[in-house]
């Protein structure tokens, strides 16, 4: 069903209620994906809390990763904090880590602390590798921070001359994903590659060892696992090491069609079409059988006017799934970012699906709420924020798929692939049932 479409710009960045944190956070997320590392925030103590939050996002084991801060105060802002940074790096020696990432925040960058020079000066005095990352919050949002950190890591840690390993890839930016347990998505991708006989030489980043960085240049291909960041790293690898980007311009594998296409593309690239076809056939069969056994609610999904408010990584691929497989009618799509590649991809998707929902890029919370109040969908795929935002709008269902979600997940659950479809359906069912729990009681129980 085609509707009148309207491509809107996001909120002008004057009064902005953000969905995303800043570049420092994205850089910290990326750095903390390196096993056994220490992250030193050259920052006031408040930014340390930001790094602490990034720690959780990378699922880092607190017994294995260290985070420090120079806790800058007025003195260091007035007189400079380079000396304090140098001293803290030297003191970090006692932690016995293999690598230290030094991240600069807004304050020291504005006053001109040169963290690159400090790290170079001190490198010979310590036994660990040091990677400075200039990622002040004002440089952009967390997705841009991820790109900045990947850039610094690739330049500093990748060994330039390496022999290619046939049938190998590196995976980029798995953590730039709104799925709060995105580690499940990464695991699914690795499992699929393994079935196709493809070697993953490096994951940039999650549980990444220093050796993996050394191997990056040997990769034949790379796969960007995000539509929100990582493209710059892929471009760098292509230019520097002739590493081909695979599944480029293709929605990530959410839903039957996207997953099948994605697998087929990989299969073609690595000569494993039969494996790809087998995974798809078995996966589709499993989803269908499981839905027959456990139930798949159609009554509220069929032709339900829907909104997606999410990052591009989840939001763009989800469009195909809810339209084609769940028979909903997307009326609104609000994306938290706006990379040119993702935008083009979305435009192709809309054309292919023959739908014209209202689309907004780089949205903030206010813009999303305003759009919801104008479009008034029946269901919203979003986060805990939308759950609150719709309270006064009479929108009955919010399915919490993307961060932040006020539900604890002890198990990493993928949205990618076939089990991923069931995980999404499970979220939908649970939130749907919750909506039917009356907050009032007509009479009191007697037991």
């Amino acid at each position, binding site marked *: 069903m085609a509707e009148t479409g309207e491509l809107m710009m996001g909120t002008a*960045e*004057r*009064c*902005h*209620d*953000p*969905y*995303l*944190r*800043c*570049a*420092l*956070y994205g850089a910290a997320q990326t750095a903390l994906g390196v096993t056994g590392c220490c992250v030193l925030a050259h920052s*006031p*103590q*408040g*930014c*340390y*809390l*930001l790094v602490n*939050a990034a720690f959780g996002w990378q699922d880092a084991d*607190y*017994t294995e990763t*260290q*985070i*420090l*801060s*120079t*806790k*800058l*105060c*007025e003195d*260091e*802002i007035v007189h400079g904090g380079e000396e*304090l940074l140098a001293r*803290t790096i030297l*003191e*970090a020696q*006692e932690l016995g880590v293999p690598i230290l990432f030094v991240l600069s*925040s*807004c*304050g020291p960058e*504005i*006053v001109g602390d040169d963290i690159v020079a400090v790290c170079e000066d001190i490198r010979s005095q310590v036994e660990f590798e040091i990677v400075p990352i200039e990622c002040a*919050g*004002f*440089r*952009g*949002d*967390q997705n841009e921070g991820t790109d900045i950190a990947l850039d610094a890591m690739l330049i500093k840690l990748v060994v330039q001359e390496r022999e290619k390993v046939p049938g190998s890839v590196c995976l980029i930016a798995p953590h730039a994903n709104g799925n709060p347990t995105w580690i499940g998505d990464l695991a699914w991708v690795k499992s699929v590659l393994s079935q196709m006989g493809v070697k993953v030489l490096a994951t940039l980043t999650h549980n990444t060892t220093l050796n993996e960085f050394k191997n990056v240049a040997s990769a034949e291909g790379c796969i960007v696992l995000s539509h929100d960041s990582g493209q710059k790293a892929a471009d760098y690898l292509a230019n520097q090491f002739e590493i081909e980007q695979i599944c480029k311009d293709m929605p990530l594998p959410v839903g039957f069609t996207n997953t099948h296409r994605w697998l087929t593309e990989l299969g073609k690239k690595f000569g494993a079409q039969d494996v790809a076809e087998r995974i798809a056939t078995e996966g589709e069969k499993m989803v269908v059988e499981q839905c027959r056994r456990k139930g798949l609610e159609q009554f509220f999904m069929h032709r339900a006017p829907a909104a997606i408010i999410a990052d591009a990584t989840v939001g763009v691929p989800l469009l195909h799934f809810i339209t084609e497989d769940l028979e909903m009618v997307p009326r609104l799509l609000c994306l938290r970012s706006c990379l040119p590649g993702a935008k083009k991809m979305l435009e192709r998707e809309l054309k292919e699906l023959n739908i014209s929902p209202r689309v907004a890029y780089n949205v*903030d*919370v*206010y813009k999303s709420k305003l759009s919801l109040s104008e479009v008034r969908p029946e269901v919203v795929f979003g986060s*805990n*924020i939308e759950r*609150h*935002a719709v*309270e006064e709008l009479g929108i009955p269902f919010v399915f919490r798929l993307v961060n*932040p979600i*006020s539900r604890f997940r002890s198990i990493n659950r993928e949205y990618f692939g076939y089990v991923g479809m069931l995980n999404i359906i499970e979220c939908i069912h649970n939130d749907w049932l919750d909506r039917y729990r009356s907050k009032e009681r007509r009479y009191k129980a007697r037991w």
Partner: protein
Amino acid sequence: MDDESIAFKGTLQQLLEKVEKGEMIPKLQASHAPPCKFWTAFQVLNGIRHMAPVIHGPKGCTYSVANAYKMNSCEYRGVPMEPTSCTAQDEADVVYGGEGKLLEAVKEAEQRYHPELIVIFSCCCSGIIGDDVETIAQRAESEVDAKVLAIRSEGFGGDFRSGYEDAFRVIMELMEKPSEKMKKTINIIGARQGPTYTEWTQDLDEIERTVHAIGAKINGVLCGGCTLEQIRQARAAELNASWCYDWGQKLGDLMEERFGIPYARTGLPYGLKATEEWIMGVAIPLGLEEPARQMIQKETRELAKEIDTIRQFFDGKTALVEIAEFPGPIRALALARMAGEFGAHPVVVNIHPYTIKERMPSIKYLLQQGQNPEVILTKGLFSLGTFRSSWQTEVELETIAAQYDNAVYLGTPLRQPGVPQVNLTTMTGYPHFGYSGIKNIARLVQSSVENAGRSRSRLFRRVLYGGN
């Protein structure tokens, strides 16, 4: 105990002196990083209903406080989630300045959210480049209907305490000269609630119950979910009383100095004596001494059984009160006092020098009141607030506890030193304050005795301290 494991052993007074001389500074700059001034200023002002913040800074600072203080707490607090907006400062703003953008953002915030109050917060970026948030606030106020305040809250500009204090100072600008006093009415000050996950609502409920029970009224809890109107009327109250002495002290002093409103200086109402002091600190200035005494006698009489339970638990024991993680240093000192009141020898374990430094005025006040407990600071906690120290600190705490043949432990379930242990973090254990608190603490200590022989689970031990 092995001196190798001890960073400090002495009295609170001696620790304070060392901190004042700058002798107790941990080597690595990692440990014990509380929020910065911006976070804590936001925490306070976020407790004003329908306040629209305009944070003059990048998105990271904004999302972080929104996430920490609104999204995760509004359901628990029963308050709606409201916007947290910012100017999303970028590189161009840093180079060219962002005052114009800020002014537009304030106007936009009014159009969008229709607030009664807009507060501009400066961050590191806007502070360093010299954007004049105060002047913009003045100018904006002439162009919008809302009241507009500004606070210089750049993260590097002070410790976390300074954020609270400056925020309380700023709200004084909203307080209007009253035409008449509100009789027998007080303000509860020093709160940072709203949707913020900081204070325990149950403790505040107990304070309110107590105040009403003696026949007094409360104008508002500043800034614990108060309205702008309650702040405006705050000068009409006869007295300020503190929800938490530490956080209320600055506002209490300032309002006394500037508006002549007396401030009831009392510690946290843990146990019988401190509760009585708190109540009489309110009752006497309001002329409600008699109903207060009657109330104290009645409530104390009704709690005879619980008081006996608590006394049996503490009498003749060494009470190790640990505050590394929870319940926080001022509460720990109040707990130590309560343990002493019921016959124990309190030892406060792991009150970090950083904490002493940031709470200096309150610590000094407590010392003046005669609270000077023994303090032990272990090297594990002192050196680095990480997993390693967590493991080290557990071992050190077990060693400390083993040195006494009669120790009991009050603190967090992150530790289990092998002696009767009171878990102060259970939800149903609240309130701790006042007479309802005594009832709960009696239940907690009873459980502690009944379960003293249980060992730490293998799961908890391995998750908390590592190993397989």
